[in-house]
């Protein structure tokens, strides 16, 4: 059995500039912030980022690491508009593929199922079609004859996700109320790096929790990183809620100052 544990820096060292990178969580919820922090301390850039966007997108945008973003929204939830994302968009900093939340989900499903696309009843009639001229439609071959968007697979070179618990082999467990789409991100990716609050023995995972909490299976995971508080300042229920003070500091501090304060190289030794 392969022990896949590594540090956040080791995980990030396997990423390359120009990659398509999926990031799990949703808005400002269970984002793999420790891994994003390590990514920001690395030189990896020119990324296509695929995310239900939160501060992960905001930070990478502020640091100029994004070439293209695929997202249905970017928000900090309790602070609806992500300030760094806004600034980047308003200065035309990168290319955007803006799609609907459901289109995004079916794009991940298509990639996970090795399909080129999946039909979705979403997008038609909206300006999602205008701003994504590459999107194609498909008409039902059955008698209903309805036309759908053929949502292309969102294939990922790598995925970053954060779970509550994991074992050393890459079995990941969520203990909060929502799995988000972290399993799909891992399944849609060539390589997936999963951080977790705590690494435990495999038997420990289901000692008190039901087996359906085992969201991520080891065959979809390349590296496991133990990162306590690794989603901070986003929420990681039930281990901790969102740190609203820390999020407010992030949202109101000029990026260079914030980065100097929180992303200094010395912090990189942790994990």
């Amino acid at each position, binding site marked *: 059995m392969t022990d896949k544990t590594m540090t956040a820096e080791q995980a990030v060292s396997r990423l390359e500039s120009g990659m398509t990178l999926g990031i799990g969580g949703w808005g400002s919820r269970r984002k793999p912030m420790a891994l994003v922090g390590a990514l920001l301390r690395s030189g990896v850039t020119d990324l296509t980022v695929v995310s239900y966007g939160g501060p992960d997108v905001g930070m990478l945008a502020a640091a100029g690491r994004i070439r293209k973003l695929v997202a249905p*929204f970017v928000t900090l939830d309790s602070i609806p508009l992500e300030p760094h994302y806004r600034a980047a968009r308003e200065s035309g900093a990168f290319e955007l593929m803006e799609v609907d939340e*459901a289109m995004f989900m079916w794009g991940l499903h298509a990639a996970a199922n090795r399909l080129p696309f999946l039909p979705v009843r979403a997008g038609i009639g909206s300006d999602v079609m205008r701003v994504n001229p590459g999107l194609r439609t498909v008409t039902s071959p059955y008698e209903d004859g309805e036309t759908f968007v053929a949502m292309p697979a969102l294939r990922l070179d790598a995925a970053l996700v954060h779970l509550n618990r994991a074992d050393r082999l890459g079995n990941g467990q969520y203990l909060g*109320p*929502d799995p988000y789409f972290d399993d799909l991100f891992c399944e849609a990716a060539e390589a997936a790096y999963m951080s977790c609050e705590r690494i435990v023995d495999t038997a420990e995972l289901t000692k008190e929790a039901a087996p359906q909490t085992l969201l991520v299976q080891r065959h979809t995971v390349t590296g496991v990183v133990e990162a306590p508080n690794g989603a901070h300042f986003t929420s990681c229920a039930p281990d901790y809620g969102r740190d609203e003070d820390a999020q407010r500091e992030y949202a109101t501090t000029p990026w260079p100052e914030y980065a100097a304060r929180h992303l200094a190289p010395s912090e990189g030794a942790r994990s």
Partner: protein
Amino acid sequence: MTGTRVALLPPTRAEYCVIACAEAWRGNGEVLAGPMGLIPAVGARLARLTFAPDLLLTDGEALLVRPDGTTEGWVPYRKHLALVTGGRRHVMMGASQIDRFGNQNISCIGDWERPKRQLLGVRGAPVNTLNNPTSYWVPRHARRVFVERVDMVCGVGYDHADGARHHRIPRVVSNLGVFDFATPDHSMRLASLHPGVTLQQVREATSFELTVPDEVPATREPTPEELHLIREVIDPGNTRAREVGS
């Protein structure tokens, strides 16, 4: 209910808005009410507690909850998106812009390529509008919200809904009145004015030509029981007044 009741203060504008939002879910049966915004959330709970007892409500996260907070189901985002496409939901979304045919924008203001103001993004508006009834809530009715044309169509309006077999916009509620699309060309119509609001006020705050019936009804009065529920049970902290002042 026993005992005498203290004479109630007259309804506030926010409370008329609660009633107008609650009415959106009347007769919907066993579907998920998806309120976005404080007043729609109060309205959905009011409907659930009174005339629409079969409605499903969420805790704003992954759980279906009864009005007293008891968990009765699990709807994480992935099941929520499946529920949308199944059609068993009536959502009331916000709108940074909405136009004469009910196209809604929450993505950005100005040119999409390089917006003047980046907002949230399209979120689930495209899938919502093609799959389940989608109403809208605008707490501050103004010309910059009720526009001739939205800058980015997120929620699909009637003039873009050809062939969309499940498309329906039951109502738009603002702090001034209730609007619907019950006209031959599905353009927006004034359905009722909240008491205290004049037609002139609505016209001045709307950039496009509204259809106005000869007789404009008033948004209905809350019953004493409804006022009690709003004030004492659902929203004792008066969050509704933060969204719509008097």
